[in-house]
């Protein structure tokens, strides 16, 4: 561009010089220039004048291009400034924490919540037709009335045939537990109501999807009560800073009772005696309530590696006359070796006096283990969602019946809370009503 401008200046200078010479030279000099030379010079001047005009036009075009380029440069610079400002704003936004639940809602004093589980089963027992059933729908209602007050109640709903006594079906709706918890301090909680009793750990930790098997251990169902009406103090004390705990619970409840008021062994009722009789009288069925407690140590070695050992017991009168004592002792243990292996077991021993059979001693136990195949790191489809489980349990009812059962099965984790379980049970019992084998398939969901 600069070169073109220099050229135009040169041409313009030559033309101006020629004109000036023509005007200023004396007539003698003009006379010395021939017509031919004059015409040649004239043609040259005209030619240069044409070139000058062409150069001027080119110069104008160049100026336009320069203006356009300058405008584009300004636009580019503005875009760069905008991008820089946006980038700085994004970095600043990332540095700030994401807005979470508003504080007043997160710390609201009252909150209602529903947890629970639901189970659907297919059962095919020896010498019986296989059947589908709604095994359980068990919601748990939680109402938090502050930082340290909680009311919780669990229900069990099942469908069952009216047959063989009649047609149709009926729905049972049972209260599993309903208790008011008041957290007195970091180490002690007062509970009152229909309490899940800490006789071992199964009654508190065996519901639905928590249990690795579709049915309960024989001894837990037959020998100890799952809940009782009364009050309880419970809690845990840290043993050092590594997570070790001393767990404790002590309670007083109405306790077991007699189904017909007598002291005959067959009348022992572990689940009755809720304080309100069918005739509307509020009264314990016998004069002395029961007492009990549990003491345990929880020893975590690191996350998901732990051992828990506990002893628990309960005692109290059971017949209306208050002549006979019922006692129970439970030893429980559970072991976790990583996220894939769990083993647990309980030994239960109960004794009670009776009018007809004297002192009766019952005992039972179970051990169970599960291993998640994800621990094998196999790159096979579906295998990492599978857990193999096994259980052996035994029951001696103290009145001549013994039952031993071996259960083998699997759990397929569709999600962490949706489980498809399958178990095959081998049962050896002196009770002729017990099947020899049983297949149970269960779909279980915890919510």
């Amino acid at each position, binding site marked *: 561009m600069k070169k073109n401008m220099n050229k135009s200046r040169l041409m313009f200078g030559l033309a101006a010089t020629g004109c000036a010479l023509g005007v200023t030279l004396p007539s003698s000099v003009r006379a010395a220039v021939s017509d031919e030379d004059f015409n040649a010079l004239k043609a040259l001047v005209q030619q240069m004048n044409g070139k000058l005009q062409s150069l001027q036009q080119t110069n104008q075009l160049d100026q336009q291009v320069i203006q356009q380029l300058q405008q584009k440069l300004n636009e580019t610079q503005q875009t760069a400034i905008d991008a820089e400002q946006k980038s700085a704003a994004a970095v600043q936004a990332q540095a700030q924490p994401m807005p979470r639940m508003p504080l007043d809602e997160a710390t609201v004093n009252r909150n209602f919540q529903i947890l629970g589980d639901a189970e659907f089963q297919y059962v095919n027992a020896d010498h019986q037709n296989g059947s589908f059933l709604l095994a359980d729908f068990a919601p748990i209602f939680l109402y938090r009335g502050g930082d340290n007050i909680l009311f919780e109640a669990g229900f069990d709903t099942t469908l069952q045939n009216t047959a063989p006594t009649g047609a149709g079906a009926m729905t049972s709706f049972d209260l599993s537990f309903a208790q008011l918890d008041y957290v007195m301090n970091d180490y002690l909680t007062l509970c009152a109501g229909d309490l899940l009793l800490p006789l071992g750990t199964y009654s508190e930790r065996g519901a639905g999807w928590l249990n690795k098997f579709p049915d309960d251990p024989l001894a837990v169902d037959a020998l100890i009560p799952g809940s009782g009406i009364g009050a309880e103090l419970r809690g845990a004390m840290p043993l050092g*800073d*590594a*997570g070790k705990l001393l767990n404790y619970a002590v309670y007083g409840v109405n306790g077991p009772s007699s189904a017909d008021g007598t002291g005959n062994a067959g009348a022992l009722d572990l689940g009755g005696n809720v304080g309100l009789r069918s005739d509307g009288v509020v009264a314990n069925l016998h004069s002395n309530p029961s007492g009990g407690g549990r003491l345990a140590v929880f020893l975590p070695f690191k*996350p998901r*590696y732990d051992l828990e050992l506990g002893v628990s017991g309960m005692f109290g009168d059971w017949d209306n006359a208050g002549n006979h004592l019922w006692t129970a002792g439970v*030893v429980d243990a559970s072991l*976790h070796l990583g996220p894939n292996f769990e083993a647990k077991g309980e030994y239960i021993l109960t004794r009670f006096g009776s009018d007809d059979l004297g002192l009766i001693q019952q005992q039972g136990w179970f051990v169970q283990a599960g291993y998640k195949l994800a621990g094998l790191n196999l790159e096979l489809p579906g295998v990492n969602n599978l857990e193999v489980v096994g259980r052996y349990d035994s029951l001696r009812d103290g009145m001549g019946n013994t039952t031993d059962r071996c259960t083998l099965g699997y759990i397929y984790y569709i999600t962490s809370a949706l489980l498809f379980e399958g178990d095959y049970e081998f049962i050896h019992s002196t009770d002729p009503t017990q099947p020899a084998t049983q297949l149970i398939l269960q779909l279980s969901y915890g919510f």
Partner: protein
Amino acid sequence: MITHMKIIHQAKSSAQNVLAAVIAAVLIGGLASALYADELQAAARVTTNSVNQNSVARDNAKAASHYKLSGAELYSIHCNRCHAERYPTERTAAQWKTIMLHMQVRANIPGNQARLILQYLQENSGR
């Protein structure tokens, strides 16, 4: 006399049962203790550059015994006692507060540990 014999027999049976339970507990406890010792020794091996490995192992054991657990670690420890861990994003901060109060009572978790777990859950909650 027969009743007396029966009571003695029952007492012997009970003693055998209690003995069996104690043996089972000791076996499980021994297994876990051995595992714990292996964990500490493994930690010592990983971090040891010194020629005096025994003193380093002792230091690691001492450090482990005074190790303060975070909310996330306590969450893994206590949830795994009964069930698989649920994702913190499954519930809101307010819901976790109610559930943690339930779990504090049900699983016998001391209040200070429950607060650390709740803090972890609320910081990583669904919203």
